[in-house]
């Protein structure tokens, strides 16, 4: 009886773990059905443009999806509809937008099934797409099979980028680790950083990003005093941070997600670890980061990727005013919101420019035109967005400014980083 009782929780534990990390879908389910892709004859009459989106509304991806992507998507739809819709030349009128949104429950298999449902059953005109690299990776074959152009503002993957020829309908919109890493290396060398410590999360993001930065800095003569990794779900990193502190480096580079970066910030304050340059990759650009620790505390902290409303791009400031009003000052993402909004701006301008809802034509238009957006003039080479508003951001007076690359900066770098305020 005892043994039996033990087996039950063990089996359940396994099941729970799978739920938590998102069950991988068996290969036969991820492969798109072999039915012929529907051709896209222009329907005789059209009163609306139907958009489809499967995205995490529950499960572990909900927070990232909600803060970064859902809010700017919803705001854009409301704005477009307030103007009467998107003008489509082949219909000679504006067509309002209607969104069909499903919850992918943060599960990759569910995401793929729902994307197919949106295409085959709901027959949506365009797809807005999910949140996170793994999800975009999973739907790449599906959207290509059915020729649905998608603009991915929340994907960060070397692998996907290298597959560009096989996935002509997927456009990578976010700036990618390679370029971000190069800008960081230049910045650190410019500042005269001589010693550093690094820590990364044991996942693709942490490993790829750290490998883009740490060896390059070492090769340029920066002494790497410690190079650590840590797992997802870690709850106490004070031993690592105490060791970092004892090494007294000029710079600390952390490559991790919000959970770990928020923890590292809190525990660095606790152990008094305050290097002259303190960079943590993801989540630093979230307004909640400033709300939780306070503007004074986060002053000088750096994060991956950057955008600022004062950058010289059409409508940037107005967009940020509206976004802040929409999500509240504590609910925005200084980097991701602009990227996600500019991605739908591209879709809108591509439909207007191509003058049709024919997805093949819209895809070709996206691939060849330049789009005026809140992150600047976007154009794609090998389906990769070449326009980048900034690679490194830094909190300064409660705002997340662009500080690298140098030519994109909206403020001078604060270096050395100020001490943590005394409580």
């Amino acid at each position, binding site marked *: 009886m*005892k*043994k039996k*009782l*033990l087996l*039950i*929780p*063990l089996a*359940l*534990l396994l099941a*729970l*773990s799978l*739920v*938590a990390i998102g069950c991988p879908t068996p290969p036969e389910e991820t492969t798109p059905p072999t039915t012929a892709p529907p051709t896209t004859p222009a329907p005789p009459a059209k009163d609306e443009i139907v958009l489809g989106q499967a995205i995490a*509304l*529950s*499960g*572990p991806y*909900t*927070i990232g*999806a*909600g*803060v970064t992507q*859902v809010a700017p998507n919803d705001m854009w739809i409301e704005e477009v509809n307030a103007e009467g819709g998107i003008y489509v030349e082949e219909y000679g009128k504006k067509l309002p937008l209607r969104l069909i949104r499903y919850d992918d429950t943060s599960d990759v298999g569910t995401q793929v099934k729902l994307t197919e449902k949106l295409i085959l059953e709901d027959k949506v005109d365009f797809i807005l797409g999910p949140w996170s690299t793994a999800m975009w990776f999973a739907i790449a074959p599906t959207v290509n099979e059915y020729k649905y152009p998608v603009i991915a503002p929340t994907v960060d993957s070397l692998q996907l980028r290298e597959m560009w020829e096989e996935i002509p309908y997927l456009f990578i919109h976010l700036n990618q680790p390679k370029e971000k890493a190069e800008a960081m290396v230049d910045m650190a060398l410019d500042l005269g950083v001589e010693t550093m410590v690094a*820590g990364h999360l*044991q996942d693709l993001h942490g490993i790829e990003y750290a490998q883009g930065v740490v060896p390059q800095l070492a090769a340029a003569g920066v002494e790497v005093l410690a190079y*650590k*990794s*840590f*797992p*997802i*779900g*870690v*709850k*106490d*990193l*004070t*031993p*690592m941070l*105490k060791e970092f502190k004892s090494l007294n480096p000029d710079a600390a580079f952390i490559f991790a997600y*919000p*959970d770990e970066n*928020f*923890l590292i910030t*809190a525990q660095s*304050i*606790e*152990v*008094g670890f305050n290097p002259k340059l303190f960079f943590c990759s993801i*989540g630093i650009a*979230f307004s*909640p*980061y400033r*709300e*939780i*620790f*306070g503007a004074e*505390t986060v002053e000088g902290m750096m994060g991956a990727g950057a955008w600022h409303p004062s950058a010289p791009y059409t409508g940037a400031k107005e967009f940020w005013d509206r976004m802040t009003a929409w999500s509240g000052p*504590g*609910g925005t993402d200084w980097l991701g919101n602009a990227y996600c909004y500019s991605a739908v701006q591209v879709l809108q301008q591509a439909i207007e420019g191509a003058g049709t809802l024919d997805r093949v034509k819209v895809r070709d238009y996206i691939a060849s035109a330049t789009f005026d957006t809140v992150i600047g003039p976007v154009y794609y080479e090998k389906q990769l967005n070449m326009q980048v508003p900034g690679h490194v951001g830094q909190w300064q007076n409660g705002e997340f400014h662009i500080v690298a690359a140098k030519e994109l900066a909206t403020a001078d770098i604060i270096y050395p980083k100020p001490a943590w305020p005394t*409580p």
Partner: protein
Amino acid sequence: MLTTILDIVIGGLITGGIYALIAVGLSLQYGVGRVLNVSHGEFIMIGAFATYSLYVLFGISPLLSLVICGPFLFILGFLIHRTLFQRLRDTSESIDVFEGNSLLASFGVLFIIQNLALIIWKANIRGYTYLVYPVNIFGATFTTNRLIVLLFAVVISLGFYIFLTRTRLGKAIRAAAQDPTTAALSGVNIKQVLAICFGLGALMAGFAGPLISMIYQITPTMGMEYTIIAIIVVVLGGLGSITGSLIGGFILGLIGSIVTHFDPGLSLVAYYVIFILLLLVRPTGIMGK
């Protein structure tokens, strides 16, 4: 050397204290009531968010929130058991069938609570800073809030242990854990005791939530992470053994801290290695019989 040892031990006890609290809660619900409550983490989340809201909106101290959240969640847990799980228990053919049914029902509870929280608090990361003054203990530095978490975790755990061993209700709970049928024959009102056990499990979540919110950032979807830890500790400590869960929580925290000191990358690996080793060597858990 002393500083390093203190760093490791106190750091481990802080994490372990939280693990112990959440595991004791689940241990009561599963070990005694046979409800593998996968929504346990959601109760912790309610406690954490209630504390956050009370602190940010009304300036109510998180420590005061402990005595608000704990009893509130106790009542909620008690009522959920009386209305949902007791009915399932009555209508299930056997205790094994009940385990399966109650697991499914608790998944339902999980989704209801999580989605309500997403509606109320939105999909966002929250947190606040509270008592982050550094305290120096023989060279080892900790912030006040973390030490308070440790203190409260130990006090609550000890208090609960005394309650179980010294009070009449505590004895009834232990009797119900060992053999519900005989306990019922001996005059224990088993329905009442099971509902109280579930309520006490929620009470522990109601204590753990505010403490967690004092030192970590919180999200409406944070629950599952803590549920999984609780399940590990419950199995580690021995099913049905509340003392085992208490000890198991602290042991897991300490092991995590020792391993993190040498290589943070191996901290979670260590948890699972211990877990597997224990199951191989002593499948009934530390205190299981």
